[in-house]
């Protein structure tokens, strides 16, 4: 195992992009387009060729308007996302993504992404109103190629651990630090602007599969909550962190259901062969009122019907694939859907002798996830575009967070549900353009790092290696040690807390104020123990910092869940003590800001403005 050299390396830039997934790659391209002299540095903990949520590839682009064919207008997408989120989305940010997203997708096609066409109309083949079908095995390498060509420098295999503020201005960003997962060096990035595009979070909650299969999480196991874990301790304002997402997926393999429901027109039934959703409509209406009347029926409410059906003793729930695969073309599309983006589901079929042409497949609601670009919108509170946003949603630059010069994109940004891959790339482009503009405006004024702080952080970054080395000397062998816990032991503790107290699968997503407060106590002690994580090598050091980011994120999720005293999204989670949706008091965003000086959390209600009828 590689030893950490701990040599310090300084890298300067105008635009620093943290995370080379869909948001980060979009940001690099756009920043390079607008300023030909700017130094653009992209830093990634893996290898941008195959990193992030799209490492497999994808089979669909889930956000495309089709304005050139008059298919949809951007405001219709805002209405759709709003309905799916039961009223709460940042409509300014959503509109902005939607009005630009077509140019992103057209660029993807020009770059070489094979987009399927409808043989009759010649238009892109629609999976549903917003989704188009692609042959997307190489989606990520293609997007990465454009970013790599454009960025001044790309640093792969560097785990960013902390953001750092300016020495003289605590409201201004100055860069980030981290370590080389391969070379063990301490990297200090100084930059005029910083874009956080580090993706969402899996493994916050204990997964349904807890052995080897815990790797087959719905969101990638490497989606380590860094986007939130980097921002929260710095004091950046977060929003909707309670809005975790539970996904109805093919059981165990977590194969996506979109193409099956929308394109192939398959449907779900209970074990008795009944379509069960209508049965739950009246109870759902009792909980959420008129929001139940929306079309399409919101994602969380469909989960709710499934959960209730299972509780009523009529599981398993089946996806009746065998009714719809009646042509070779449809069979190929069904298989490609998984081979492009969730090969593990094909492995499940092969291992269980399930031929989708002959046999149905079980569906299940997953454990909860925390992210911002799917049918949910957890993330940072961001400034919107000047020509769209109401005054209190706009402070200077588009996609700037509540610290000067700090931007975000994709899963990082709160309020922008249903952006998906194309929306995240688009949001990255918006952030990239703003960041380069900001850096240009700051021309004469370079941010300054506080040397003492940089040295202190260096000690903190490598501490888990020291903990392990020193602690291990006291015991014969093995990982039972009174001085430290390993990152995995810490992760299991975290997942147990979140599962049992904050609405995971073991309580069927139910929590209440008492449980959340108890959860916060347990999280508080886990946070103290983060100082005592022991890492055997650089790989484990990466795991240690992923755990750190997950724990900060989890605390934020728990505090937001406690703050919102209603059940806004049945099927995602339930406040047992506030079982119904309460628009009178909670038609607002939740906001939180951690104060790094005092360690206090400030919770607030943030206004929901509707821009469209």
């Amino acid at each position, binding site marked *: 195992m590689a030893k950490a050299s701990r040599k310090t390396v300084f890298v300067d830039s105008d635009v620093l992009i943290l995370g080379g997934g869909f948001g980060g790659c979009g940001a690099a*391209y756009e920043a*390079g*387009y607008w300023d*030909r002299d700017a130094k653009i540095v992209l830093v990634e*903990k893996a*290898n941008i060729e*195959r990193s992030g949520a799209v*490492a*497999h590839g994808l089979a669909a682009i889930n956000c495309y308007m089709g*304005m050139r064919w008059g298919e949809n*207008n*951007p*405001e219709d997408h805002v209405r759709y996302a709003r309905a799916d989120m039961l009223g709460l989305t940042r409509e300014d940010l959503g*509109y902005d993504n939607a009005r630009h997203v*077509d*140019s992103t997708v*057209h*660029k993807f096609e020009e770059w*070489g*992404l094979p987009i399927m066409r409808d043989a009759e109309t010649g238009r892109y083949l629609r999976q549903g109103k917003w989704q188009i079908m692609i*042959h997307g*095995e190489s989606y990520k390498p*293609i997007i990465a*190629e454009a970013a790599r060509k454009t960025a001044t420098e790309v640093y792969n295999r560097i785990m960013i651990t902390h953001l750092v503020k300016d020495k003289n201005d605590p409201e201004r960003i100055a860069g980030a630090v981290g370590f080389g997962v391969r070379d063990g060096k301490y990297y200090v990035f100084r930059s005029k602007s910083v874009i956080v595009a580090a993706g969402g979070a899996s493994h916050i909650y204990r997964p349904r*599969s*807890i*052995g*080897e*299969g815990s*790797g*087959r999480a719905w969101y*990638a*196991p*490497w989606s380590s909550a860094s986007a939130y874990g980097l921002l929260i301790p710095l004091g950046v304002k977060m929003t909707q962190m309670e809005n975790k997402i539970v996904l109805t997926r093919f059981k*165990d393999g977590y194969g996506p259901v979109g193409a099956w429901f929308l394109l192939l027109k398959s449907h779900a039934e209970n074990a008795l062969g009944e379509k069960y959703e209508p049965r739950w409509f009246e109870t759902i209406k009792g909980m959420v009122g008129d929001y139940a009347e929306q079309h399409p029926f919101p994602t969380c409410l469909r989960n709710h019907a499934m959960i209730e059906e299972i509780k009523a003793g009529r599981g398993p729930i089946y996806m009746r694939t065998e009714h719809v695969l009646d042509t070779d073309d449809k069979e*190929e599309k069904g*298989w*490609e859907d998984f*081979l492009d983006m969730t*090969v*593990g589901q*094909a*492995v*499940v*079929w*092969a*291992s*269980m*002798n399930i*031929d989708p042409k002959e046999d149905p497949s079980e569906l299940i609601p997953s454990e909860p996830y925390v992210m911002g670009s799917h049918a949910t919108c957890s993330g940072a509170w961001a400034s919107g*575009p*000047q*020509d769209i946003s109401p005054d209190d949603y706009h402070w200077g630059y588009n996609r700037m967070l509540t610290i000067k010069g700090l931007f975000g994109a994709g899963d990082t940004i709160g309020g922008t549900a249903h952006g998906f891959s194309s929306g995240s790339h688009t949001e990255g*482009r*918006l952030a990239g*353009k703003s960041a*380069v*503009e900001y850096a240009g405006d700051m021309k004469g004024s370079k941010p300054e790092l506080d040397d003492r702080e940089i040295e202190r952080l260096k000690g903190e970054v490598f501490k888990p290696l020291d903990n392990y080395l020193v602690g291990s000397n006291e015991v014969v062998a093995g990982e039972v040690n009174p001085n430290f816990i390993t990152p995995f032991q810490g992760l299991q503790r975290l997942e147990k807390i979140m599962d049992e107290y904050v609405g995971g699968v073991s309580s069927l997503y139910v929590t209440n104020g008492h449980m959340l407060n108890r959860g916060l106590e347990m999280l508080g002690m886990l946070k103290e123990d983060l100082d005592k994580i022991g890492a055997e090598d650089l*790989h484990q050091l990466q795991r240690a910092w992923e755990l750190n980011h997950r724990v900060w994120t989890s605390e934020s999720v728990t505090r937001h869940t406690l703050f919102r005293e209603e059940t806004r999204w049945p099927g995602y989670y339930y406040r047992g003590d506030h079982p119904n949706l309460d628009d009178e008091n909670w038609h607002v965003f939740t906001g939180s800001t951690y104060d790094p000086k005092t360690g206090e959390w400030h919770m607030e209600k943030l206004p929901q403005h509707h821009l*469209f009828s």
Partner: protein
Amino acid sequence: MPTFVDMTKCDGCGQCVDICPSDIMHIDKTTRRAYNIEPNFCWECFSCVKSCPQHAIDVRGYADFAPLGHKVRVHRDEEGGKVHWLIGYRDGREKEFTFPIRTTPWGSIPAAQEHQAPGPNDIKSPQLAHEPTALKIDSLPTLEEAQNRG
């Protein structure tokens, strides 16, 4: 154990180590060959499988739920722009699929800087690179238009 490596085929080249998004393909010190150090953090994304020049990496479904006796093999033909899959069922049935992966040559995407530079004040406009041309409509939609549509 999600991915595993065939001792006789692996030559220790490190391609899989370089690509794995989870940083779990490592070279074993003693055998100088690759192995999966943390199977419970493997997504079965097949990135390493596709990258291995020796076809030395295979996948055995997660022990939690996948019965033995299956195989899912892949050959990604970058030059030919195709990916080939072979699915082998536990009961011996097989299926094969081939899908396109790219329509342009690898490396052909121009850097953003290779496109004509925008005008000095264009950065103040709400447009992104290549817009409105790349939108394939006349102009970038505005809030007023949207609100007028009602």
